[in-house]
């Protein structure tokens, strides 16, 4: 079955779920922090993307709740599935290839020692 295309928002969300389960707001914060505020995921884009990740079984609602003290019973936590990890890796590899091309064509500066 074709995995289909990951939208940028879906990709960011998967990346942010890789290291731990997060709730919606946590994803927004993580993405914004990691990208230095360059990527701001709007509320509806977040939940539509989460929905589509669920539909394609790339992410799911986590049955276990984190033990942190900031756990909020109203919140739904999402976790990445095995398929989701694979999809994220494939997307990252693809991007890596793209980056290599970009470096090769001097769109990005070549890193020294590489």
């Amino acid at each position, binding site marked *: 079955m074709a995995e289909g*295309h990951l*939208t940028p928002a879906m990709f960011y969300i998967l990346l942010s779920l890789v290291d731990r389960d997060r709730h*919606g*707001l946590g994803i*927004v*914060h993580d993405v914004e922090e990691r990208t230095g505020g360059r990527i*701001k*995921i*709007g*509320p*509806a*884009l*977040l*939940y*539509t993307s989460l*929905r589509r990740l669920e539909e394609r079984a790339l992410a799911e609602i986590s049955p276990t709740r984190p033990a942190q003290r900031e756990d909020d019973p*109203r*919140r*739904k936590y999402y976790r990445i599935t095995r398929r989701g990890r694979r999809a994220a890796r494939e997307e990252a590899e693809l991007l890596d290839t793209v980056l290599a091309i970009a470096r090769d064509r001097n769109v990005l500066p070549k890193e020294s020692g590489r």
Partner: protein
Amino acid sequence: MSRRWRFAVSERLYRALLRLYPSDFATEHREELVEVFRDRWKTEHDRGGQFPTGRVWSVLARDLIQTVPAMRGRPMRRPISMHSVLTDLVLAGRAMRRRPVFSFIAIVTLALGIGPTVALFSTLEQLVLDPVAAAGGDRVVQVSFHSEQLGFSFQPRAAHYEAWEDGATSFELLSPFAGTARALTGTGDAKILGVTAVEPSMFQLIGIELLIGRPILEQDAEAGATPVALLTRSLWRERFGGDEGVLGQTIMLDGVAHTVIGVLRETVALSSWANTEILTAAGDVAPLDPVGVLGRLRDGVSMEVAQEELRGIVVEPARADWLPTVRPPWVLAGNHVRSLWIVFAAVCLVLLIAAANVANMLIARGIDRVGELALRTALGASRWRLTRMLLVENLVLAAAGGMLALLVARWVQAGIVGLAPDSLRALNQVSLNGVSVLFGTAMTLAAGIVAGLLPAWRIGRVGPHAHIRSEVRTGQSQSQGRLRQVLVVGEVALALVVFAGAGLMVRSFLALRSTDPGFDPRGLAVMGIHLPEYRYQEEERREAFYRELMAELQALPEVEHVSIATGLPTRFGIMIATPEIEGRAEPIEGLGALGGSTVGPDYFETVGTQVVRGRSFADLAGSVSSPIAVNVSAARQLWPSGDAVGSRIRFGSGSWYSVVAVVEDIRPHGIREGTDRPQFYLYEDTWHDRIVAVAVRHRGAFAPVGDAMLRVAAEIDADVPIQAPAPAQSLLIEAVATERFTTALFSVLAGLSLVLSAVGIYGVVTFAVNSRISELGVRIAIGATATDIMRDVLGNGLRPVGIGVVMGLGLAVTLSRYVEHLVYGIAPSDPFTMLVAACVLIGVAILACVVPARRATRIDPVAAMRVE
């Protein structure tokens, strides 16, 4: 606008927008979505910088655009990328360039509709919705006394304030202030300035921003402290050339040295009566009594609760009918606010007319483009794609219109401020701000969507077959022609309402101007004198100054009569005492506020007020002690059955005055409410007051007399500030300034709505003629005369106008009761005004139809057939 208010509105708006999503998605995720929204709000506002609310909404808007179509439409293969939006923008730009005239007219129309709306909105927003840009936001209130019976508010005394501050628990903070006029000397001409004394706590209560220097601190208010002053920016520029070296310099206020400690960024408007040009510390030099009081309510305490609490605190001196009242700060006189709202309503009508016009043009253009769109459909563009393209086109048009509208708004606002009467002095501080720009953006978006969606939806229904079947074109234009006629009907109806409103204003204004003011403004010059206290502490000095001034003025060759008075015609003092008539036991109730002035012997001769009965003060020659004159209204109301002259009257428990004359009424505010207010003139021939007015009746032109008056005063004492001499006509103009203001605004709007609806009618008729070229050609070919064609086209064009006029008349008569208080001398539904308005509109409509109709008569039948 306060942040809390913006937040509440934004959240509500966002929740409403969530309805755009399919209901299952919206219900399941609503709270989560709102939570992310709130978080975004907090992040952007905590981060600081410009337009945080705008930043929040730019994120939300992108989010909505990205997701709504995807959720609503078929599952999308690709999300809308920036690239395809760019394509839309490029297409829109191309479409605009292709029809420059169309684009130009649409943009100008939108600008003319939106610009004035933004200007008026920002004026109202700052005057009414958000009067004090207060740090404490919506919990800042003012406290004063209000008398229902007199319809006036009074300032509390210091004792009241202290009792409230000790006793009331509803307030986090109460801060007093006092406004006075003081003479600034030592830097250029002596000048009277509005000086407001505040306590340091005022800086915590409301946001007072400084350009340079420091705020007033506790130590400045201590006994024995050096008096300090903060200047407004305009005063600083005018007197000190904007030099920062002003800090630490000394200025003289009423002869007292004040050290300048800073410059205010903006004028501080603590109340409508305190015109602040200098801010000083309250203390020995500026005692606070009576005071203005501003306060901040505790969280959760309403104005009503606070008011009840204050009413429970009894302080002497107390009067039963004066009740402590807690209100939003800085409430303008009700009439002004109401006038502004009515003007705003009229502006909204003009905006609607403009939107209808643009919609009209867009529909017409849409019909022209059926072929193009059909082709795009045939080539695979989806309906959604076409709709989006048309929407983007319209939004680009609207955005261009919006930008031009901001320019228009600035001009309109400058015009409003220029026209505004002194009583709306607060308008000087009004400017276009972020909120009104946001409002303008919202208006622009709304105009773009409303004016664009309708044609987009209609064109969206066009199938790819349309370009094959050419008859679709006529079929389409018929149903859309009907829609356009409906728009014309609406436009004409609205224009009639605005025009009739303007007619009512103009007629009321003329009626006001032609009423007898009760004095003779021609050949009358007036000026104000303000003796600084420090130089004129002794009564003898003041007496000597006035004696010399009167003698010098009298000696001028052009001068016939001179008089000093505490009030001039149309500007009266108010007396709050209850009058008592000698020999009559029953009290006199229900008189309301009384007008009162103290005047010199020659006063009535000077201002030209007729003595109806009795003798003028000038003829008394000291034969009567404590004489008083009353006006006709007072005589009628206080002595209904007898003659006032010869009777004695006193106020409160004061001394008795003998009535020597009944004089004609002076209309103090040039308006109906003042016509039957009792007025009293106390007699005085030796003057001690520090602040008086001088009236001079002269021959010839005003200018040389005015110069001479200034010169005479300066020769006696150059350090006395003079309110520049002015012809008395200015008093009359000032008295009807509010009316003049409303009338002028309305007239401009009426002109605008006429032009807009004429453009609309012209467009519709021209288009109708164009789409009927072949039919008209055939009729000309089989013998129709020019008159037949003319009659046909005019008849078709004028039918919707006729319907619109009838509907507009109905609407105007229905709405007229809302302007009742602005109308003078005629009925609000004055038939003559309505008729004239209808005739003018029909006349303009005929003009707008004649041009295309004449073109129709000149159609060449042969050429017309060839088109088919």
